[in-house]
């Protein structure tokens, strides 16, 4: 079911389901996996040392300390060879280190890994970590294939992917009054083509991470022709114009109607769609009019000015 990557970005891996839908995973490279590995090694060391001391103490009190030594060695064997494998088998592809670093091992066809895959790929770690636990073999093998698979991954048909942070199902809201004002000036008969809509939403999602002059630099390419076409004054902010376009495409139900700010009904509606991307949390969504819970009925919503400014995460 795994599809060739085609023209996607090379850290994404596409899976085609029987429903003929392609969804993407983000692959984890060696240097995303290294911190998880170090955490796991530390946990193993602590587990072996603590377990060994505990066993010594327990069997020492029973006056048979050497049984403690023997069991300690069995524990050492089990942990050093099977710790990662057993965790990945039981925790659906995650070890404690991977869970902390938000990584997960899955099959190359997108399914969760089975216990045999989990254990085998970690036994073969011994080949990958050569020479001298420097992981040169694993690193070079991973560099030579598309899935960043080390030898153990190649044998088991597995890959390590990055668990996406919880994306929300909602769109980002533009609240700048300037943008809302500009949105009204855009002619009603202007139709936004699909790729422009995509470019607009990509821009609005990322603009907060950009400094002001960078925004201008990027936005100018699209905003300048638009400004000319709409006949807006030359001092119009490119950044705000694109926000206005975005608002027009995604929110305003009819051009010229400022749904977001003026009507309580609409403000409830907008708040549902609030601020909910990884970029947006907490930023610029503090306009009082937008701060209502998603499922608050319009009748219970007071005038905008009475409600405290807060960020509502719609989920």
């Amino acid at each position, binding site marked *: 079911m795994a599809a060739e990557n085609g023209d996607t970005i090379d850290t994404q891996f596409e899976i085609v389901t029987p429903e003929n839908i392609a*969804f993407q995973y983000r692959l984890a490279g060696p240097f995303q996996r290294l911190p998880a590995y170090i955490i796991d090694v530390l946990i193993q060391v602590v587990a072996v040392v603590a377990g060994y001391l505990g066993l010594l103490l327990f069997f020492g009190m029973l006056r048979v300390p050497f049984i403690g030594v023997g069991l300690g*060695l069995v524990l050492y064997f089990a942990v050093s060879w099977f710790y990662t494998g057993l965790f990945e088998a039981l925790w659906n592809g995650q070890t404690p280190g991977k869970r902390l670093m938000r990584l997960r091992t899955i099959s190359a066809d997108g*399914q969760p890994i089975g*216990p045999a895959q989990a254990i085998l790929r970690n036994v073969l770690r011994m080949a990958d970590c050569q020479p001298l636990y420097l992981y040169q073999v694993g690193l070079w093998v991973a560099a030579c294939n598309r899935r960043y698979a080390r030898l153990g991954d190649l044998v088991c048909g597995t890959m390590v992917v990055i668990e996406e942070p919880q994306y929300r199902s909602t769109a980002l809201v533009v609240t700048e009054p300037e943008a809302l004002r500009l949105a009204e000036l855009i002619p009603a008969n202007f139709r936004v083509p699909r790729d422009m*809509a995509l470019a607009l939403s990509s821009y609005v999602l990322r603009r907060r991470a950009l400094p002001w002059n960078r925004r201008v630099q990027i936005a100018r390419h699209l905003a300048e022709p638009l400004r000319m076409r709409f006949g807006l004054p030359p001092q119009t902010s490119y950044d705000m114009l694109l926000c206005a376009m975005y608002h027009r495409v*995604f929110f305003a139900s009819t051009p010229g109607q400022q749904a977001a700010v003026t009507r309580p009904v609409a403000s409830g509606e907008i708040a549902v769609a609030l601020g909910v991307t990884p970029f947006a949390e907490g930023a610029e969504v503090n306009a009082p009019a937008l701060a209502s819970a998603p499922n608050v009925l319009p009748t219970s919503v007071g005038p905008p000015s009475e409600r405290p400014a807060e960020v509502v995460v719609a989920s």
Partner: protein
Amino acid sequence: MKVVALLDQRRENWRELETLCTRFEGRRRSKVEAETSVHFAALYRGACADLALADAYHLPPNTVNYLHQLVGRAHNQLYRSQGFNVANWFDEIFDRLPRRLYRDGFLRLAFVLFWGFFLASMYLGYASNGFAESVVGEDELRSMEEMHVDSTQGRDMEAGLAMVGYYIWNNAGIGLWCFAFGLFFGVGGIFITISNAVGLGTVFGHMATLSTETDFFNFVTAHGPFELTGIVVMSGAGMRLGFSIVATGGYTRGESLRRAGRESFPTIILGTLLFFGAAVIEGLISPSTLPYWTKALVATASSALLVFYFVLLGQRPGD
């Protein structure tokens, strides 16, 4: 239709699918009722359709990302691989595995290499002066001689159990190491097999030359069959894995490697079990003061078990 309205309309579905995913991820599938499964499948298809139409709907990228993640999660629940099944594994280890191993050319190769080099270096260690010293090293030999002066004078139960733990850690670890090294195009496996065989064979030969009596042969008799077979099995599995990159049998290299990997897993379980058995015998029976014929009996019995497994279970016609 504007995006916000669309999102409002679809969000209920997505949220419900997410809740079900969380539920399914947390527990065994068998406990999920039929209606829930059917409903889940419907929700999943809905999310798939939304993702397919994301472009046409003008969905913003973050929503598309969300949908990718949601569909991926649901897909993993719907098309889950089989979990661990004890009955299946029993069949695998005692039915399919011996038949496979009986016909496994790499196991034979490992067997021939191991025993060939073992016997040859045993002869050299016995007949040629200085061979053992140059292969194993003087100090190593002396400490082994010392160790085996009275290695069968009995230990108490406690020390015996401690040694069982030591042998599991050391020997089973070496076995897994042999397996993993086979991955280097099989050459690694050949190297490890030969170096183990030469090392062990030389010590055997050298111990026979000593004028003073040692307990060496008394000590190694009982656990020998399991331990040496364990090494051969592990090395063979490793070689098979490594050579599958070269001799693909008509598959792509990657697919050939994955097939060999799937087949090798039960073998390493078998190998580890053999090492466990050997460790128990080595820790408790080998060093004991039991008369030699009991140890020979243990060796005979374990050899008979191995013949039963590899030959009698193995030669049955395959499916």
